């Protein structure tokens, strides 16, 4: 009997846990370690952040699901991995209990296979004054989103009282990812201001590290529409113009004071953006996880990239951006030193940016990090489990499955306003997520499968996905029939 330990219970980890139980649970032990007691369907935090959903609609307790599925659940924060064990023991993880019982105690959980799906550390500290403990709000967690909604309500009240307000929305550092979420929040806020009848008194400014609108950290997209190739840049600019939203591009936010965002542009210009409300997403880094060998020596540098994310089967040689190829991206998500360790979702270290990285004359890096959330995360989580299943059955000579982001599509529905008859969203598909210029020389992606459209239908799809994926995460009847 093998013990499969999964760190994290987000989209990647929770998907891996449910599939592991279904595929391997009869003969093997499945263990989940997560510091959080709740599952959070993060894509819908946007709606919590504008007060259209409450927190309870986007979270549910994990323990009852895991109890019903007979998955062992430890509410604990993984702190150290011992992939060789210690003093002759099996490999294990040390985790600090965060649940109400035995809170603060450190426990040792042995494993045969480890799936690292910890997600990111929200690195608000990278920018002074950034985040809910500073001078801006966030929608990264359901709690943050509740706070954002309350502050937005205050701003709307001031607008109704006739006071002009500036709302700055975007990313809070030059190396942030998840620009799509910032885009969604911008348009949802715009939508709510219009619904409240106060849009004319509000200035909405999108501040981003993207070099062009529509980049979304994936280098933008090219669509085929009505006989022409069009770009996500043109498409997004059109939406910004239509809604009267201003944009500051190629920006590194260096500091957030109580009412002023300080930023540097890629041309070296230093600027200030006064605000009354600021929702700025933080940059991500790997969680605070260390690794030690059998002698107790710290081997974290061998296991993790400088960003703190776990190294997997990618090309980390650090070649120039212009030289990268799609095959640099990981396929199996196995750690090269300890192949019984996998890192999936945000937890794996990407080999390089997808969007072109740029530096200001002052040497400040302004480079959107590659998104690896949502659908790709779920696919990676399932792929890790399929690999473990294959290894358990046929050993290393078996056919280990692959799921490179350069051979994986993604569907993304970016909400632009909520409401069954007046909502809208940008529905996008792209294939592959990581452009492959050898396979698709001009555009990097398949024109047949890369697509974008704005309309009410997109809102219905986003709403459908909300209910469908929460149903799936609750492991209700037939959950496995819903694709990642």
């Amino acid at each position, binding site marked *: 009997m093998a013990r499969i330990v999964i760190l994290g219970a987000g989209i990647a980890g929770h998907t891996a846990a449910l599939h592991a139980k279904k595929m391997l649970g009869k003969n093997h032990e499945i263990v989940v370690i997560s510091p959080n007691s709740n599952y959070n369907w993060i894509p819908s935090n946007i709606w919590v952040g504008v007060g259209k959903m409450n927190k309870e609609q986007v979270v549910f307790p994990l323990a009852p699901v895991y109890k019903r599925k007979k998955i062992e659940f430890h509410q604990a924060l993984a702190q150290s991995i011992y992939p060789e064990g210690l003093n002759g023991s099996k490999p294990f993880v040390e985790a600090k209990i965060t649940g109400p019982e035995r809170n603060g105690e450190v426990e040792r959980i042995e494993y045969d296979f480890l799936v690292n799906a910890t997600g990111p550390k929200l690195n608000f500290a990278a920018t002074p004054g950034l985040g809910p403990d500073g001078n801006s709000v966030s929608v990264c967690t359901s709690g943050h989103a509740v706070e954002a909604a309350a502050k937005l309500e205050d701003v709307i009240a001031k607008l109704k009282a006739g006071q002009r307000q500036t709302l700055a929305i975007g990313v809070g550092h030059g190396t942030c990812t998840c620009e799509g979420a910032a885009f969604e929040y911008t348009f949802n806020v715009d939508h709510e201001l219009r619904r409240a009848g106060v849009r004319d008194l509000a200035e909405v*400014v999108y501040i981003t590290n993207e070099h062009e609108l529509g980049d979304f950290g994936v280098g933008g997209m090219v669509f085929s529409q009505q006989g022409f190739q069009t770009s996500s840049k043109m498409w997004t600019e*059109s939406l*910004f113009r239509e809604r009267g939203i201003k*944009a500051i591009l190629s920006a590194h936010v260096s500091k957030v004071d109580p009412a002023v965002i300080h930023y540097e542009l890629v041309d070296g210009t230093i600027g200030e953006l006064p605000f009354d409300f600021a929702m700025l997403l933080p940059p991500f880094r790997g969680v605070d996880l260390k690794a030690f060998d059998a002698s107790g020596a710290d081997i974290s540098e061998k296991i993790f990239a400088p960003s703190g994310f776990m190294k997997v089967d990618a090309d980390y040689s650090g070649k120039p951006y212009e030289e990268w190829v799609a095959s640099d991206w990981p396929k199996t998500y196995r750690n090269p030193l300890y192949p019984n360790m996998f890192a999936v979702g945000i937890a794996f270290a990407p080999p390089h940016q997808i969007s072109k990285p740029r530096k200001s004359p002052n040497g400040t890096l302004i480079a959107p990090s590659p998104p690896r959330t949502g659908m790709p995360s779920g696919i990676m989580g399932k792929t890790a489990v399929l690999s473990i299943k294959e290894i358990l059955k046929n050993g290393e000579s078996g056919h280990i499955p692959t799921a490179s982001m350069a051979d994986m*599509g*993604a*569907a993304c529905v970016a909400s632009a306003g909520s409401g069954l008859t*007046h909502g809208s969203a940008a529905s996008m598909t792209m294939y592959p997520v990581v452009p492959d210029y050898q396979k698709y020389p001009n555009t990097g992606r398949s024109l047949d499968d890369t697509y974008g459209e704005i309309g009410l*239908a997109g809102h219905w799809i986003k709403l459908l996905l909300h209910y469908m994926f929460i149903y799936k995460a609750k492991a209700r009847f037939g959950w496995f029939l819903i*694709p990642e």
Partner: protein
Amino acid sequence: MNDPMEDINRAPLPTEKTLKQRKNVLMQLMRFAAINIKMIKMIRKGHHPME
């Protein structure tokens, strides 16, 4: 300092007809079906870890 705001004044604006189509429930029901088909097709193409 120059205006830091991106100049998008020449970005194409949707026509009234397009804006209405984006909100028209009947038309959007058809688009709902069409987008779902596109998404399912794309998911099938890029969602086959064993192959």
